[in-house]
């Protein structure tokens, strides 16, 4: 005999089996509720930790270390003293979990000296485990006094190699050390180097003025340092942050403990505890607030949907259990007993769903985070547990409410009649009005809180959900009104199917409230997927905007060749490589690209604020070549020599020119000058292809040395005042016979050659000597200093100007329209063709020009130039090998995919990945709710269909009625859902700071994917077909059963 408890369990099992479909549906809804409740906080917590990791990783060493320095002066601090302090901190469990291992560091401010070079500031660092963060290219870590490790870059800069002796000035003393190791600096993001002075803030290029740190053995610093260095030595104990131990939930405790410990150590033990971690963490927490908004806005939607689903399922289940309740009332069960009876089953199902929900949410979170290639632990913290409990309570409340409604309704007693129905209708109306009012309130709150996440409350967070719900209830109220007209139309027609369907829908308009679930899940699906797609597209666009191509390789091109020739050699067809130069200037950087290759290589997504690549190419790459570039084999000079002031000894003109990209000067010697106006022609050796630039013009006395212009200009045999030349112009041609093209050079004054585009005005020269050729452009003030090497500048350079706010007046390159001190300190003109918010590699302040012009104007860049090769191929291994073969050294590689990966772990972008989880949950809810609706409606209609069968309505037609009816419900739900989703996207996403104020150049892209919506429709239609099929067979069976029962 079974015991009472066994009987109860057995009865519960039978009851659950008896209501298998409702049990499964409730189980799934509960699992989703728990998943939504848990995955949000878990994901948020994990993602916030990841974002913190990202922020900390890219911050300076000072932010990643806890430094402990004894407050002592005059004497070198003993390592033991520092050890004791480190031990104090190590004993603090909170701090120890973040900073477990202390190392000792001696930092000596010094000056690195090399013969013939300006002293470079350098830090000599001695530390325990000093080489752990170094990657040695040659040699090894210093292993004794008198040895040092230098960076490869520094060694190249000073032409050092392994074994070289290097000299330092530390204070007034000079120290000599032997290089024992050469290390590479991996990248600006490497922990030790990040934001170090070695890398200027925000730059991936090393600071040219600062040598890298030099590392020496710790013993050297502790034992061999002379006493006089003491004042210059800073000793400290440093512990690197253990990134993998950081968890966002522990930040507050950490900050509190750090403050407390710091205060204690300063007061009692005279140690200074320093770290910039607290500032970094504060910055991280502010970003995390945005992440919280993004994750909450979607997880609240999913939780609300899942709880609503539980409520609907409970109502349906309780309806099914009306008989049980009636029986309980009949047997005299107390209200509490009835409640227990009703709630036991669903609570058992919910309890069973709990571990599944926990497991699934952990799995989903792990998968979502895996998409970002980030491996973090899955934390279940207080927030997760609180959220889980909240949903557990919410689900229990939904169950309790559904149960109470049935019990108070009186399952056994007859219906309260018309009055009760009216009261019920009034309650539903009030609920609908409340939903609409809440949706409107949330919309207002959301709109008013745009851009201010902190202002957005939970009502705003739930607005997309409420809006869809409001749309659904309004649609359900409108449907009967619309159907009335259709019913009237079908009355006189013989279309039985339509007749039945319209009446059925009209009659079921109240019970069709279930479609709110379908609408909400569809809306959530559209919302989640669109938001995720928007975020994904935007970060891809942002990565493309910041890098410019799949890879951008910074190179050092050997002197015997040029960047352009390297690019031509590696990619003759111009399909995947492009040369580019960045000219760095205090006034803004200018990017010069090969216009002929940019279309194939540059990754530039046009948008409303950014013109297309084609348009940019047309702007910066005019079909006409620059006017003043020597492009030919012969020069023709026309000179009038005043017969009365002609030189006595033989005199000739010489022109110094340089081929583009070449450092060497060439000299063109014109024939001897003769009195009177004559034209002189000289060959330039056919070298000027694609062009040469003028350097100097000399009037040489051929009686003295004429080997080089510099040497020939020192002395003239005729007093200068006796020489008078009238320069009438310089032309260039491809043959000695012409045709000739005028170069924009002219004599501007008696002593200065100046250019004047485009006509080539005449000028005069007095005396013999070397004269700098100067350029004269429209709008440029004359009177430039002699000695500045001339540049042959074309007419205003067409440029695309980058200006963060899209206004050309704010652009550096365009600050003085018409003329400005340009990239290299020379004067040039630009002609702004377009203003864009940002440019790859340049940012929001700078310009884009064609490489030909940039090379013409390059002489002495203010801050330097960076030669780059842009590559649009996904793999660059072969390219790097080819570059190596050509002797081109690679100094840096920027990868669009790496930037993208970095963006993916940045706060809001990382948070938006949670939308994938939400979309997955929405799909499950959509499928489950749709199946539930259809199965429920089919089951409810079995008796009706059996009645139709008695009226000679064929099964086929009955099935058609069900199909059509369900199709209408589905389509209505989907339309309402899609509208709700679109509204949600427009309203909610614009409240996310990242979307409301995107970075310059990034135009917000709301990705409403037609593919996605199409797939949703397809899935639901397939489901309709499947469930409809099952429903029809169910109805046939039930209808038969009904008929049999009625014939008993």
């Amino acid at each position, binding site marked *: 005999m079974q015991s009472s408890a066994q009987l109860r369990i057995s009865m519960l099992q039978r009851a659950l089996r008896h209501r298998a479909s409702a049990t499964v549906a409730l189980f799934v809804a509960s699992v989703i509720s728990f998943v939504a409740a848990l995955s949000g906080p878990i994901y948020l917590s994990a993602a916030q930790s990841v974002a913190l990791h990202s922020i900390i990783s890219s911050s300076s060493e000072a932010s990643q270390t806890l430094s402990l320095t004894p407050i002592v002066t005059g004497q070198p601090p003993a390592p033991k003293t520092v050890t004791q302090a480190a031990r104090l901190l190590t004993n603090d469990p909170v701090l120890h979990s973040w900073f477990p291992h202390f190392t000792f560091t001696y930092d000596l401010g010094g000056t690195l000296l090399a013969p013939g070079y300006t002293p470079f500031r350098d830090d000599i660092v001695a530390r325990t485990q000093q080489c752990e963060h170094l990657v040695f290219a040659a040699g090894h870590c210093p292993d004794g006094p008198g040895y040092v490790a230098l960076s490869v870059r520094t060694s190249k800069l000073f032409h050092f190699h392994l074994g070289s002796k290097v000299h330092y000035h530390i204070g007034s003393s000079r120290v000599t050390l032997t290089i024992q190791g050469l290390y590479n600096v991996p990248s600006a993001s490497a922990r030790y180097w990040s934001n170090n002075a070695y890398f200027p803030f925000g730059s991936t290029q090393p600071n040219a003025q600062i040598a890298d740190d030099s590392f020496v053995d710790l013993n050297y610093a502790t034992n061999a340092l002379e006493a006089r260095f003491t004042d210059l030595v800073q000793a400290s104990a440093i512990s690197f942050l253990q990134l993998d131990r950081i968890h966002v939930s522990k930040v507050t405790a950490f900050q509190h403990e750090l403050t407390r410990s710091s205060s204690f150590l300063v007061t009692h033990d005279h140690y200074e505890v320093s770290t910039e971690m607290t500032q970094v963490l504060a910055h991280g927490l502010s970003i995390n607030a945005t992440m919280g908004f993004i994750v909450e806005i979607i997880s609240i939607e999913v939780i609300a949907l899942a709880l609503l689903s539980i409520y609907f399922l409970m109502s349906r289940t309780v309806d099914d259990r009306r008989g049980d309740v009636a029986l309980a009332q009949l047997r005299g069960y107390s209200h509490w007993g009835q409640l227990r009876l009703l709630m036991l089953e669903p609570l058992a199902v919910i309890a069973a769903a709990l571990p599944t929900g926990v497991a699934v949410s952990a799995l989903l979170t792990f998968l979502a985070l895996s998409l970002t290639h980030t491996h973090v632990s899955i934390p279940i913290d207080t927030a997760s547990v609180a959220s889980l409990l909240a949903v557990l309570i919410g689900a229990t409340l939904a169950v309790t409410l559904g149960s109470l409604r049935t019990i108070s309704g009186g399952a056994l007693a*007859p219906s309260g009649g018309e009055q009760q129905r009216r009261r019920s209708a009034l309650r539903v109306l009030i609920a609908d009005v409340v939903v609409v009012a809440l949706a409107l309130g949330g919309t207002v709150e959301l709109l008013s809180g745009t851009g201010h996440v902190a202002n957005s409350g939970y009502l705003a967070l739930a607005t997309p959900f409420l809006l869809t719900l409001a749309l659904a209830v309004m649609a359900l109220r409108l449907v009967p009104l619309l159907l009335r007209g259709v019913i009237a139309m079908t009355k006189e027609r013989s279309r039985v199917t339509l007749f039945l369907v319209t009446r059925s829908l009209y009659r079921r308009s109240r019970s069709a409230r279930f479609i709110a679930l379908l609408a909400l899940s569809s809306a959530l699906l559209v919302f989640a997927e669109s938001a995720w797609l928007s975020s994904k597209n935007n970060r891809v666009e942002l990565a493309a905007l910041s890098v410019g191509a799949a890879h951008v390789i910074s190179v050092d091109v050997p002197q015997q060749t040029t960047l352009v020739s390297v690019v031509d050699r590696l990619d003759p067809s111009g399909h995947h490589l492009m040369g580019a130069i960045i000219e760095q200037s205090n006034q803004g950087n200018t990017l010069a690209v090969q216009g002929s290759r940019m279309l194939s290589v540059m990754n530039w997504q046009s948008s409303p604020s950014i013109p297309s690549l084609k348009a940019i190419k047309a702007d910066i790459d005019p079909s006409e070549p620059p006017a003043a570039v020597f492009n030919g084999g012969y020069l023709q000079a026309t000179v009038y020599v005043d017969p009365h002031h002609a030189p006595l000894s033989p005199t000739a003109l010489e022109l110094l020119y340089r081929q583009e990209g070449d450092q060497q000067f060439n000299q063109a010697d014109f024939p001897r000058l003769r009195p009177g106006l004559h034209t002189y022609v000289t060959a330039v050796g056919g070298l000027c292809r694609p062009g040469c630039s003028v350097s100097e013009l000399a009037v040489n006395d051929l009686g003295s040395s004429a080997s080089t212009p510099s040497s020939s200009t020192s002395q003239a045999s005729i007093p200068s005042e006796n020489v008078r030349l009238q320069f009438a112009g310089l032309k260039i041609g491809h043959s000695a016979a012409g045709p000739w093209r005028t170069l924009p050079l002219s004599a501007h004054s008696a002593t200065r050659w100046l250019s004047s585009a485009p006509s080539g005005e005449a000028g005069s020269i007095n005396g013999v000597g070397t004269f700098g050729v100067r350029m004269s452009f429209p709008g440029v003030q004359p009177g430039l200093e002699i000695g500045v090497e001339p540049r042959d500048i074309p007419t205003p350079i067409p440029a695309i100007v980058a200006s963060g706010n899209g206004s050309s007046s704010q652009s550096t390159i365009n600050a003085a329209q018409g003329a400005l001190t340009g990239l290299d300190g020379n004067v040039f003109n630009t002609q702004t063709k377009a203003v864009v918010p940002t440019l790859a590699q340049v940012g929001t302040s700078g310009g884009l020009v064609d490489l030909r012009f940039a090379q013409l104007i390059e002489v002495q860049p203010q801050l330097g130039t960076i030669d780059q090769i842009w590559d649009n191929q996904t793999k660059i291994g072969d390219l790097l090998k080819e570059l190596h073969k050509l002797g081109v050294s690679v100094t840096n590689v920027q990868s669009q995919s790496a930037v993208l990966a970095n963006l993916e772990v940045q706060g809001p972008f990382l948070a938006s990945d949670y939308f994938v989880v939400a979309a997955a949950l929405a799909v499950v809810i959509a499928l489950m709710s749709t199946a539930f609706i259809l199965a429920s409606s089919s089951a409810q209609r079995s008796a009706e269909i059996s009645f139709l069968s008695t009226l000679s309505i064929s099964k086929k037609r009955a099935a058609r009625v069900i199909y059509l009816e369900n199709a209408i419900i589905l389509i209505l739900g989907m339309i309402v859902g899609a509208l709700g989703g679109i509204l949600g996207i427009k309203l909610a996403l614009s409240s996310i700071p990242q979307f409301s104020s995107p970075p310059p150049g990034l135009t917000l892209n709301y990705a409403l994917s037609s593919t996605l919506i199409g797939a949703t429709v397809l899935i639901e239609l397939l489901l309709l077909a499947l469930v409809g099929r099952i429903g029809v067979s169910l109805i046939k069976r039930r209808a038969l059963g009904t008929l049999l029962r009625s014939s008993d």
Partner: protein
Amino acid sequence: MTKTEIEDSPGFEVVCRDLFHLYSTAEGDVVALRSVDLKVQAGEMVALVGPSGMGKSTLLGLMGGLFAPTTGAISVGPYDLARLSEREKIRMRSIDVAMVLQNSRRNLLPYATVLENLAFSERALPRPRRKGSQHWMEVLTNFAIEHLATASVASLSGGERQRVAFAAAVVGRPRLLLVDEPTSELDAEAKVAVIDALRSLNERDGTTIVVVTHDPAVARAAGRSLTIRDGRVGSQASDGVEHLVVGRDGALQLPRHILEHLPPHSLVALQLEGERVILERVHREP
């Protein structure tokens, strides 16, 4: 059952006085019972008969405290139902009054076994009154269905299911058993079994039984049958003799064979001669 036996029985007496009950519908109020006066002796088995929709089941529901009468008084043993709260009515049903509704499916949990249904019924009782599985088997044995103890309700025949319903209803030894149409879904053989079960329950335990039925066999099995028509107790039959019942307002419901001679709107004259009342039709044009 003799009068003495009835007085000693543990059954409850049921008394209805001037009972009115209205139902509210969209079309207006409908009178289900009007001025019903009725007394069921403790330990008696009474059948309520009459056409459908005349108020029998409503009267049964009122006796079971499922709803309150619109006016009038109704007492079940010590319970004055008009004054009882909902909670007290529930308690009354859990301890003293059991009901078996029409359609045996409504009296049992369809997914549970027979024994589980008995356990379910007993769980409504206060804990001290629960007797456990031994008692359940005894009850099943009383109804000759002990072999069905572990069978699922869904697998039972109509007759078996009805007997299980009785067993489940009386597992708490109620003082009053209210039964609605116990044989409506049964074949002849099953009917006999159910009637026997009712009779034996009444005779063995002294439980007062009120049964609503259309089945003459059930009515015969009851000691007394009351005909409810138009919401009134029209007549009472016992030992094969039927008597009309005069209503509180003097209304009298004539039997059908008399009405054939007295069509509606006929005029009659009454004469009282000693204990006899003579009803005579008057043929007079209006």
